[in-house]
């Protein structure tokens, strides 16, 4: 599996992702500067967390126009894998690869915490190493992570089972109390209709190395790895 990790000015989780794919999983991984546009050798493009272009104007708004994102849009249109984490999720919505938008957290605070999430669907490469309904714990760290979409978009997301991760209680119950940021329908991560593009606010790369206190995120990368091994 050839992994490309996009680096914008202001990205700050890029090296954490490289540590997981290269350091823990021994997969060839290269960092892709935002001005590059050659992704021909890449199987999975990962748009990492951080504050691309200072998050000026809106989170992810300016990153969308970079050469690497134009190439990432083409990569996704070919059915290849794209993962956006945190700021990367915001970039993917701004780029139109995923529906909806991420807006200011309900309580205005930057939330930095470990939160329980329910895995809603496990028939996609991203989640095939989890069990449906399983409750996992991943870190979140964001100020603008409240998922918003209009009613029609939300309905089509739910009808097509595009919600992959939902904030929940430790027991797996979806209730407003276990919603850290006000996301509609408790949405923490969604995929596109085809399933090859995933965006999520929680950080699986920060919960992959056992020395960081949790490994629930590693299975996402492992699932991706086995899916690509099957294809090629």
């Amino acid at each position, binding site marked *: 599996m050839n992994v490309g990790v996009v680096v914008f000015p202001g990205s700050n989780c890029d090296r954490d992702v490289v540590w997981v794919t290269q350091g823990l999983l021994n997969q060839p991984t290269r960092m892709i500067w935002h001005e590059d546009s050659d992704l021909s050798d890449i199987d999975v493009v990962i748009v990492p967390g951080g504050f691309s272009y200072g998050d000026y104007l809106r989170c992810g708004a300016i990153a969308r126009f970079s050469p690497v994102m134009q190439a990432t849009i083409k990569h996704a249109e070919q059915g290849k894998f794209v993962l956006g984490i945190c700021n990367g999720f915001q970039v993917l919505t701004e780029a139109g690869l995923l529906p909806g*938008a991420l807006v200011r957290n309900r309580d205005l605070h930057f939330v930095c915490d470990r939160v329980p999430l329910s895995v809603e669907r496990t028939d996609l490469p991203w989640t095939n190493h989890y069990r449906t309904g399983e409750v996992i714990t991943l870190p979140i760290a964001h100020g603008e992570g409240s998922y918003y979409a*209009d009613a029609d978009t939300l309905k089509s997301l739910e009808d097509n089972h595009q919600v992959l991760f939902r904030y929940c209680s430790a027991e797996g119950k979806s209730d407003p109390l276990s919603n850290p940021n006000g996301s509609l329908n408790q949405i923490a991560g969604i995929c596109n209709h085809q399933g090859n593009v995933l965006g999520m606010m929680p950080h699986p790369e920060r919960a992959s190395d056992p020395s960081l206190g949790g490994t629930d995120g590693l299975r996402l990368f492992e699932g991706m790895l086995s899916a690509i091994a099957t294809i090629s």
Partner: protein
Amino acid sequence: MTQNYQAQIYVTLRPSVLDPAGTAVKSGLSHMGHHNVEQIRIGKYVELTIAADTEDAARQQLDQICDQLLANPVIENYRFDLQQVSTPLNVGS
């Protein structure tokens, strides 16, 4: 002949999107005693100058600029005022 125009662009959250910052400011005003302030929505204001052949051309280009970058149509609306100006105004660089 090319003319210079100045635009004042207002980007506001769509009514269906919650504005927690506006709610917080409203609560601050209420603490100040302004209990009669009923609704606050916080948006963005952008000023720019643009050279174009006609006012229509400037408006068309501004629509594109707002629609693709300055506002995110999923969550925001925009409107702008446009005036012809004799020389490019310094909007602070």
